[in-house]
Protein backbone atom coordinates (compact mmCIF):
# COMPACT_ATOMS: atom_id res chain seq x y z
CA UNK A 1 0.00 0.00 0.00
CA UNK A 2 1.09 3.55 -0.65
CA UNK A 3 2.27 5.21 2.54
CA UNK A 4 4.39 7.97 4.03
CA UNK A 5 6.49 7.49 7.15
CA UNK A 6 7.97 10.13 9.40
CA UNK A 7 9.86 8.08 11.98
CA UNK A 8 10.52 10.91 14.41
CA UNK A 9 7.45 12.04 16.33
CA UNK A 10 9.28 14.70 18.31
CA UNK A 11 12.69 16.36 17.90
CA UNK A 12 14.39 18.98 20.05
CA UNK A 13 17.31 21.02 18.75
CA UNK A 14 19.21 23.99 20.08
CA UNK A 15 18.88 27.32 18.33
CA UNK A 16 21.62 27.65 15.74
CA UNK A 17 22.07 23.90 15.38
CA UNK A 18 21.42 22.03 12.16
CA UNK A 19 18.23 20.10 11.55
CA UNK A 20 17.24 17.06 9.54
CA UNK A 21 13.72 15.65 9.49
CA UNK A 22 13.22 12.26 7.93
CA UNK A 23 10.57 11.15 5.47
CA UNK A 24 10.21 7.83 3.65
CA UNK A 25 7.53 6.72 1.23
CA UNK A 26 6.34 3.42 -0.08
CA UNK A 27 5.45 3.38 -3.76
CA UNK A 28 6.58 1.72 -6.96
CA UNK A 29 7.40 4.92 -8.79
CA UNK A 30 8.52 8.41 -7.83
CA UNK A 31 5.64 10.37 -6.37
CA UNK A 32 5.27 14.11 -6.11
CA UNK A 33 6.85 15.09 -2.78
CA UNK A 34 6.06 17.98 -0.45
CA UNK A 35 7.02 19.37 2.93
CA UNK A 36 4.49 21.49 4.82
CA UNK A 37 4.84 23.32 8.14
CA UNK A 38 2.03 23.91 10.62
CA UNK A 39 2.39 26.45 13.40
CA UNK A 40 0.01 26.30 16.38
CA UNK A 41 -3.49 27.34 15.37
CA UNK A 42 -2.44 27.83 11.76
CA UNK A 43 -3.07 26.03 8.54
CA UNK A 44 -0.42 24.23 6.55
CA UNK A 45 2.18 26.26 4.69
CA UNK A 46 4.15 24.77 1.82
CA UNK A 47 7.92 24.80 2.39
CA UNK A 48 9.03 23.09 -0.82
CA UNK A 49 8.14 20.43 -3.34
CA UNK A 50 9.84 18.01 -5.71
CA UNK A 51 8.61 16.57 -8.97
CA UNK A 52 11.67 15.80 -11.04
CA UNK A 53 15.08 17.13 -11.98
CA UNK A 54 17.67 18.30 -9.46
CA UNK A 55 17.29 16.13 -6.38
CA UNK A 56 18.22 18.96 -4.01
CA UNK A 57 15.31 21.35 -3.67
CA UNK A 58 15.41 24.77 -2.08
CA UNK A 59 12.41 26.12 -0.23
CA UNK A 60 11.30 29.04 1.83
CA UNK A 61 12.67 30.05 5.24
CA UNK A 62 16.09 28.56 4.47
CA UNK A 63 14.88 24.96 4.20
CA UNK A 64 16.05 22.43 1.65
CA UNK A 65 15.24 18.80 0.97
CA UNK A 66 17.03 16.03 -0.86
CA UNK A 67 15.31 13.27 -2.82
CA UNK A 68 17.08 9.92 -2.75
CA UNK A 69 15.43 7.40 -5.04
CA UNK A 70 17.49 4.45 -3.76
CA UNK A 71 16.27 5.09 -0.22
CA UNK A 72 12.74 6.26 -1.08
CA UNK A 73 13.46 9.25 1.10
CA UNK A 74 12.87 12.99 1.00
CA UNK A 75 14.54 14.44 4.09
CA UNK A 76 14.17 18.07 5.10
CA UNK A 77 17.19 20.03 6.29
CA UNK A 78 18.13 23.42 7.63
CA UNK A 79 21.71 24.42 8.47
CA UNK A 80 20.85 26.73 11.38
CA UNK A 81 17.54 26.57 13.23
CA UNK A 82 15.81 29.68 14.57
CA UNK A 83 13.41 29.75 17.51
CA UNK A 84 10.61 30.66 15.10
CA UNK A 85 11.04 27.29 13.35
CA UNK A 86 9.34 25.53 16.26
CA UNK A 87 6.28 23.94 14.67
CA UNK A 88 5.00 20.65 13.31
CA UNK A 89 6.37 19.47 9.98
CA UNK A 90 4.53 17.20 7.60
CA UNK A 91 5.87 15.27 4.66
CA UNK A 92 3.25 14.57 2.01
CA UNK A 93 3.06 12.84 -1.35
CA UNK A 94 0.78 12.64 -4.32
CA UNK A 95 0.79 9.33 -6.13
CA UNK A 96 0.00 9.24 -9.83
CA UNK A 97 -2.52 6.81 -11.14
CA UNK A 98 -5.58 7.83 -9.17
CA UNK A 99 -8.21 10.23 -10.30
CA UNK A 100 -7.29 12.89 -7.79
CA UNK A 101 -4.53 15.16 -6.59
CA UNK A 102 -4.93 13.70 -3.10
CA UNK A 103 -2.15 14.52 -0.64
CA UNK A 104 -1.17 11.63 1.60
CA UNK A 105 0.47 12.90 4.75
CA UNK A 106 2.86 11.42 7.22
CA UNK A 107 2.04 11.65 10.91
CA UNK A 108 4.23 14.70 11.38
CA UNK A 109 7.33 15.63 13.37
CA UNK A 110 6.99 18.14 16.16
CA UNK A 111 10.06 20.36 16.38
CA UNK A 112 11.01 22.11 19.61
CA UNK A 113 13.83 24.66 19.65
CA UNK A 114 15.85 25.24 22.81
CA UNK A 115 17.41 28.66 23.42
Amino acid at each position, binding site marked *: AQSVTQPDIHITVSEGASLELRCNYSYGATP*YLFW*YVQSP*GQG*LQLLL*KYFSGDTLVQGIKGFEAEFKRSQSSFNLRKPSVHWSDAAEYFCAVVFEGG*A*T*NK*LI*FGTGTLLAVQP
Partner: protein
Amino acid sequence: EAGVAQSPRYKIIEKRQSVAFWCNPISGHATLYWYQQILGQGPKLLIQFQNNGVVDDSQLPKDRFSAERLKGVDSTLKIQPAKLEDSAVYLCASSLLRSYGETQYFGPGTRLLVL
Protein backbone atom coordinates in the same frame (compact mmCIF):
# COMPACT_ATOMS: atom_id res chain seq x y z
CA GLU B 1 -3.76 37.67 -2.95
CA ALA B 2 -6.24 36.60 -0.28
CA GLY B 3 -5.79 33.11 1.09
CA VAL B 4 -8.29 30.37 1.81
CA ALA B 5 -10.88 31.53 4.32
CA GLN B 6 -12.66 29.27 6.76
CA SER B 7 -15.29 29.81 9.44
CA PRO B 8 -15.91 29.32 12.21
CA ARG B 9 -12.43 28.89 13.66
CA TYR B 10 -13.66 26.96 16.67
CA LYS B 11 -16.82 25.01 17.44
CA ILE B 12 -17.92 23.01 20.46
CA ILE B 13 -21.01 20.82 20.20
CA GLU B 14 -22.51 17.85 21.95
CA LYS B 15 -22.68 14.45 20.30
CA ARG B 16 -25.65 13.88 18.04
CA GLN B 17 -25.86 17.60 17.23
CA SER B 18 -25.21 18.91 13.75
CA VAL B 19 -22.52 21.35 12.62
CA ALA B 20 -21.49 23.07 9.41
CA PHE B 21 -18.20 24.52 8.25
CA TRP B 22 -17.69 27.05 5.49
CA CYS B 23 -14.78 27.54 3.11
CA ASN B 24 -14.00 30.22 0.56
CA PRO B 25 -11.08 29.22 -1.69
CA ILE B 26 -8.54 31.44 -3.39
CA SER B 27 -10.16 33.32 -6.24
CA GLY B 28 -9.95 31.40 -9.50
CA HIS B 29 -9.05 28.07 -7.95
CA ALA B 30 -11.13 25.35 -9.54
CA THR B 31 -10.24 22.56 -7.16
CA LEU B 32 -11.28 22.48 -3.51
CA TYR B 33 -10.41 19.92 -0.86
CA TRP B 34 -11.63 19.13 2.65
CA TYR B 35 -9.22 17.34 4.98
CA GLN B 36 -9.76 16.00 8.49
CA GLN B 37 -6.84 16.21 10.91
CA ILE B 38 -7.25 14.21 14.09
CA LEU B 39 -4.91 15.08 16.94
CA GLY B 40 -1.53 13.42 16.50
CA GLN B 41 -2.17 12.47 12.86
CA GLY B 42 -1.58 13.98 9.47
CA PRO B 43 -4.52 15.38 7.52
CA LYS B 44 -6.68 12.93 5.63
CA LEU B 45 -8.65 13.85 2.51
CA LEU B 46 -12.41 13.68 2.95
CA ILE B 47 -13.60 15.07 -0.37
CA GLN B 48 -12.26 16.82 -3.47
CA PHE B 49 -14.30 19.04 -5.78
CA GLN B 50 -13.50 20.12 -9.30
CA ASN B 51 -15.63 23.23 -9.81
CA ASN B 52 -19.00 22.04 -8.46
CA GLY B 53 -18.50 18.34 -9.16
CA VAL B 54 -17.15 15.70 -6.78
CA VAL B 55 -13.87 14.08 -7.89
CA ASP B 56 -13.18 11.90 -4.85
CA ASP B 57 -15.30 11.28 -1.77
CA SER B 58 -14.10 7.75 -1.07
CA GLN B 59 -13.06 8.55 2.51
CA LEU B 60 -16.10 10.66 3.42
CA PRO B 61 -18.36 8.93 6.00
CA LYS B 62 -21.46 9.50 3.95
CA ASP B 63 -23.87 8.33 6.61
CA ARG B 64 -23.11 11.48 8.61
CA PHE B 65 -20.94 13.79 6.51
CA SER B 66 -22.05 15.79 3.49
CA ALA B 67 -20.42 18.50 1.45
CA GLU B 68 -21.44 20.75 -1.38
CA ARG B 69 -19.98 23.39 -3.66
CA LEU B 70 -23.08 24.53 -5.49
CA LYS B 71 -21.71 27.46 -7.52
CA GLY B 72 -18.20 26.14 -7.86
CA VAL B 73 -16.77 28.65 -5.40
CA ASP B 74 -17.66 28.43 -1.69
CA SER B 75 -18.11 25.08 -0.03
CA THR B 76 -19.88 23.79 3.04
CA LEU B 77 -19.06 20.63 4.99
CA LYS B 78 -21.75 19.31 7.33
CA ILE B 79 -21.77 16.66 10.02
CA GLN B 80 -25.10 15.27 11.19
CA PRO B 81 -25.20 13.73 13.74
CA ALA B 82 -21.76 14.30 15.22
CA LYS B 83 -19.87 11.61 17.11
CA LEU B 84 -17.11 11.97 19.67
CA GLU B 85 -14.57 10.67 17.16
CA ASP B 86 -15.35 13.59 14.83
CA SER B 87 -13.35 15.88 17.12
CA ALA B 88 -10.64 17.16 14.83
CA VAL B 89 -9.43 20.11 12.80
CA TYR B 90 -11.17 20.43 9.45
CA LEU B 91 -8.92 21.97 6.85
CA CYS B 92 -10.01 23.38 3.55
CA ALA B 93 -7.53 23.73 0.71
CA SER B 94 -7.68 24.89 -2.88
CA SER B 95 -5.56 24.58 -5.98
CA LEU B 96 -5.65 26.24 -9.36
CA LEU B 97 -5.88 22.96 -11.22
CA ARG B 98 -6.41 19.31 -10.34
CA SER B 99 -3.20 18.13 -11.99
CA TYR B 100 -0.95 15.73 -10.10
CA GLY B 101 1.29 17.66 -7.78
CA GLU B 102 -0.57 20.94 -8.15
CA THR B 103 0.18 23.00 -5.04
CA GLN B 104 -2.61 23.05 -2.50
CA TYR B 105 -3.08 26.14 -0.35
CA PHE B 106 -4.60 25.57 3.07
CA GLY B 107 -6.89 27.66 5.21
CA PRO B 108 -6.43 28.06 8.98
CA GLY B 109 -8.90 25.26 9.74
CA THR B 110 -11.92 24.82 11.96
CA ARG B 111 -11.24 23.11 15.27
CA LEU B 112 -14.22 20.96 16.29
CA LEU B 113 -14.72 19.51 19.75
CA VAL B 114 -17.57 17.05 20.24
CA LEU B 115 -18.55 16.48 23.87
